[in-house]
């Protein structure tokens, strides 16, 4: 069985380590926050100027001055800090963020990523995505392996305008966990009940089945 979006997030949460500072993008990445292991200290950054993001507020806690990068009302946890956007991206560029999780429209076998612009459609902007992918030392892309038309999003080359070049090393989809190296997607873990043939059918870029391929643990 292919993973649900929640399960993709759950798998990515296994990359977390005690003491990590983490930036989670919009979409599936946001769900990762729900799977931080109990007792593990993980600090969430919101690039609009907050470290120590907490859950959504209770109705009476809603504060228009405290939002996340998705413009949602949120709360802060003990030990949090506010800062301006330049310092926020300073943390990102100077690689103080231990893990960055982002969605994508396309990823190439060279590690290129496209996730901000579709020619012919209204372009909303890259927000902080280009800064994040250009700087993060440890990015995981969280996405579905195919687009709504059923076409693979793991490609030889991106067809959409790039967000960043040669910057992605890890991808988790509903089918598996891939490492990108030497110009190929290396399937390291396969989702329970998914066949290698299904992965092959849905991977347009060069695919290498790892010698140590294992079933994904959640």
């Amino acid at each position: 069985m292919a993973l649900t979006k929640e399960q993709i997030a759950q798998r990515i949460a296994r990359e977390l380590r005690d003491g990590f500072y983490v930036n989670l993008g919009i979409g599936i990445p946001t769900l990762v926050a729900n799977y931080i292991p109990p007792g593990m200290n993980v600090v969430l950054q919101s690039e609009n100027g907050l470290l120590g993001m907490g859950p959504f507020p209770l109705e009476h806690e809603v504060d228009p001055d405290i939002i996340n990068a998705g413009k949602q009302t949120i709360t802060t946890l003990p030990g949090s800090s506010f800062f301006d956007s330049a310092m926020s991206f300073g943390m990102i560029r100077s690689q103080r963020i231990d893990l960055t999780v982002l969605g994508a429209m396309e990823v190439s076998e060279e590690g290129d990523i496209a996730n901000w612009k579709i020619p012919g459609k209204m372009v909303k902007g890259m927000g902080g995505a280009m800064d994040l992918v250009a700087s993060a030392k440890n990015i995981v892309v969280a996405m579905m392996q195919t687009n709504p038309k059923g076409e693979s999003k793991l490609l030889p080359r991106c067809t959409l305008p790039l967000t960043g070049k040669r910057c992605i090393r890890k991808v988790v989809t509903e089918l598996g966990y891939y490492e990108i190296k030497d110009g190929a997607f290396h399937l390291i873990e396969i989702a329970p009940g998914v066949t290698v043939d299904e992965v092959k059918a849905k991977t347009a870029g060069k695919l290498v089945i790892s010698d140590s391929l294992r079933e994904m643990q959640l």
Partner: protein
Amino acid sequence: MNKTVPNADEAVKDIPDNATIMLGGFGLCGIPENCIAALIRKGVKGLTCISNNAGVDDFGIGLMLKTRQVKKMISSYVGENAEFERQLLSGELEVELIPQGTLATRCMMAGYGIPAFYTPAGVGTEVAEGKEVRVFNGKEYLLEHAFEADFAIVKAWKGDKAGNLIYRGTARNFNPLMAMAGKITIAEVEILVEVGELDPNEIHTPGIFVNRIFQGEKYEKRIEQRTVRKA
């Protein structure tokens, strides 16, 4: 030192048509509501606005789009606005999209008197077109320039009459950066206090960067995405 002006209309009265202005805020959080309203009353046209976002249809910079006062937006994300989309597609509005960190840093560098700097954001993308690429320590970076803006308009939580500012929560965002970056900086605050009432250790924007300050009124502080959890 007294930099107070009576109200938003006085604060923006010399902003001419075709000026380049910075507007603080992230989404609708920390935006200079009173000055935006005053700019609309004044009817100034042909503005180039540097602001991370473009407001929503009926609030923030969106209000200035409706009145066709904006010629060009320089932003990182402009997604939440149907009128914006219409003007963009019809060619009435120009848009320059910039990575958010680069946008923030180009403001900061203006305030810091650094004309240009190197950043990795956008290398290998269309953002890099026409820009110098340079390698430091084996990694590629783009040359980016400090912004130049005629006016910066920011919103703070507290301020004193000498222009010292303190922000609250994530309403800080681009405000302190833009406050340093305008040729003329206008600050509106929720609470204006006498000189000497703010702790000098807690000031985010020293008054030297601020030319005019006033206490705004009737802050709506609209919420774009009201998200709550159950008790």
